[in-house]
């Protein structure tokens, strides 16, 4: 696994930060803007040795997490016959949204085309696959806020279908002025540090980062002589088919998605030790998600809610939260929800408030996207 975000420059620092409950939000934006709101920023100076020194920050962040994940998996080289898939989610990196380019275009009509060429050379999964000289399927998933979780599901499906033996899966997104202005315009950005599931929650904070896991087929793991500890046990995905921005009020898409993931592993809700919730701290998301989680798992479910430490990292969220979920299973504890202080009247459930022990075989990570995509990834810890 690999992870970089405001919560930590790598997985061990993230774990340390969680143990201390430290929040690293930033009051100043990394670009000139008339907006004033906290954001969660990854380290400015990233270690990007060639060929990872790409002009796109999203690609740099992805590179850091991918390299950490491969090193952690002990996979720094691949046998030529091994097929390795790359499935990564993103939002910003998929869009031609360079403000300097467009500003110059409006003013002079013949702007430098370098931003366009940079954009065309920055497809996330394609670039990662090329940097690593990989042979295998690749896909850049742009499903808004559920991209990272969806990418994991797709990568797992590829492996089961025999299209590859290993897959690098997750997501990456940099902090960018355009989506910040976009979410601001929707009235869902908080001018205070975010408070997921809180009674006084008033919106999200944007963040940036990359979260990556390495999935392997059983055969490949066996051939390496490694004893696996965590299994990707189930996945569900589905749409609300309701509205371009608002989630379905009763969370109908999320409900079916969670049930699919549990059904794939043939387990009951009672067997899930904890759930990493999407928990953006918007009024709507947390109400819908909290209500659905309570109705499926009961009010006593331990909820891990991490956007108080990372902000909403958009395409990276599903990847980062997969890492956090696996960490919880492995370490047998989850951190309290940073920013949460008061139970909400409209949500029947609440995240854990302090470091909480969790023991169990299964944990779930849920993601709800803008425009109604829902995804749930189930992880299992082998004894």
């Amino acid at each position, binding site marked *: 696994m690999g992870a970089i975000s405001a919560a930590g420059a790598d997985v061990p620092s993230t774990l340390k930060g969680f143990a201390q409950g430290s929040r690293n939000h930033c009051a100043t934006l990394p670009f000139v803007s008339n907006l004033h709101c906290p954001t969660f920023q990854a380290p400015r100076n990233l270690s990007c040795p060639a060929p990872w020194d790409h002009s796109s920050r999203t690609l740099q962040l992805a590179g850091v997490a991918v390299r950490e994940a491969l090193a952690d998996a002990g996979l720094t080289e691949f046998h030529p016959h091994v097929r390795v898939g790359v499935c990564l989610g993103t939002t910003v990196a998929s869009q031609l949204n360079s403000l300097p380019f467009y500003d110059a275009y409006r003013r002079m009509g013949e702007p430098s085309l370098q931003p366009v060429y940079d954009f065309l050379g920055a497809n996330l999964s394609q670039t990662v696959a090329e940097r690593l000289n990989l042979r295998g399927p690749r896909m850049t998933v742009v499903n808004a806020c559920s991209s990272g979780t969806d990418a994991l599901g797709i990568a797992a499906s590829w492996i089961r279908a025999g299209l590859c033996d290993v897959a690098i899966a997750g997501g990456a997104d940099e902090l960018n002025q355009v989506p910040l*202005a976009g979410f601001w315009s929707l009235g869902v950005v908080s001018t205070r540090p975010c408070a997921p599931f809180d009674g006084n929650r008033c919106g999200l904070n944007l963040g940036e980062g990359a979260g990556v896991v390495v999935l392997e087929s059983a055969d490949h793991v066996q051939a390496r002589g490694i004893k696996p500890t965590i299994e990707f046990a189930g996945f569900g995905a589905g749409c609300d088919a309701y509205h371009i921005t608002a989630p379905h009020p009763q969370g109908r898409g999320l409900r079916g998605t969670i049930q699919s993931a549990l059904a794939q592993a043939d387990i009951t809700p009672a067997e899930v030790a904890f759930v990493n919730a999407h928990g953006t701290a918007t009024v709507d998301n947390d109400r819908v998600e909290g209500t659905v989680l309570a109705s499926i798992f009961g009010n006593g479910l331990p909820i891990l809610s991490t956007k108080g430490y990372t902000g909403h990292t958009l395409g990276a969220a599903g990847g980062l939260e997969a890492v956090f979920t696996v960490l919880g299973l492995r370490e047998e504890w989850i951190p309290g929800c940073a920013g949460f202080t008061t139970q909400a009247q409209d949500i029947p459930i609440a995240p854990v408030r302090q470091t909480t022990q969790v023991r169990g075989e299964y944990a779930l990570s849920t993601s709800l996207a803008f425009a109604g995509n829902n995804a749930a990834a189930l992880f299992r810890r082998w004894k």
Partner: protein
Amino acid sequence: MNFVSQDTLPSVSVLGFGAVTPMGRDLQLVASLLGRPPAARLDSPLRIADELLSDTRTDRALRRAGRSPRMAVLAAIDAWDEAGLACRDVAADRVGVIVASGLGPHERTFKFLDGILDCGDDSALPTDFSHSVHNAAAAYITATLGFRGRSCTVADFAVGFEQAVLLAQVWLAEGACDRVVVGAVEELGDVLLHVLPRMLASASIGARTVPGEGACFFTLGPSAVAGLAELSATARRDAVDLFVMDEPALPSIASPEASPPVRARRAVTFSPYFGHSATSSAFQTLGGLLCLRTGRVLGKDVHSARGARLTACIKNPLPLGGEGVLKHALVETPNPTASVDSVWVCKRSSRNESLSLLLTRPGI
């Protein structure tokens, strides 16, 4: 859950298809136009007329949507309608949607940027933002058609449509969906039209490229469900009746494992009719399907000299395993009017060895 391996990853049935093209939405008319030579000189991009983006069934629901979601929804509706009875009793949560696009709804992105530049970061318009996201087309397809299964938007500049078809095969094989509506959409906005000539002038393929836009969608089901054709991103043949080439292809790297030569009787392209874009192989697939349906070779010949060999051009040799060459060999048969039963949709060279598409008449 069914576990399958690449060797046996089943092909899928094409149950219906639809498109919004520069020649319109009526695919019977489009097929007849594809049987005639393309315009002799194409020096302007192939744009879709605004009238084609309007439909009384969808205008209200799409009132705020830009051109990409509109084109995608209309093509998807046509593809679903054509599948008809084969889809009538499928539960909404068993229908998946996959949309491939290279540039996405960039026109709306620039409109959102207008708001930022003119009025400030705190006064840009939310409707512009929410409609400028890459997955806007998929969001409208699922909402308008009521599909509640999996949805995926794919971003790629060369093989996005092929990646989407492969994913649909995987979803159908593992039982995640009973039907998948797969397609591609690209738009030619004003900014892109303005900068394209400069970009194409500096690229080696520039002189032969006519940019195009449009949407092309296919309703896919398991191969057990009888359809118009079988489609696969993984099947291989030694010989097919027809190559359909996404001309001109962007320079790219070939797979280190050269595929064994594939022979075809003829090679055509539909680029002069639909234009070229990041996902125009969806239109080449449409052209191939129309060849299967009409039983005739449509499109413009790429090459018909006897025994000609087409060799892919490798721009950058791969560090591992050296150069690879994807070979096609064109062999003329003594009976050039034989019907078309199999079509291979391909690019001159391919980044990934598994990403060409095979279309076959059912039962072949």
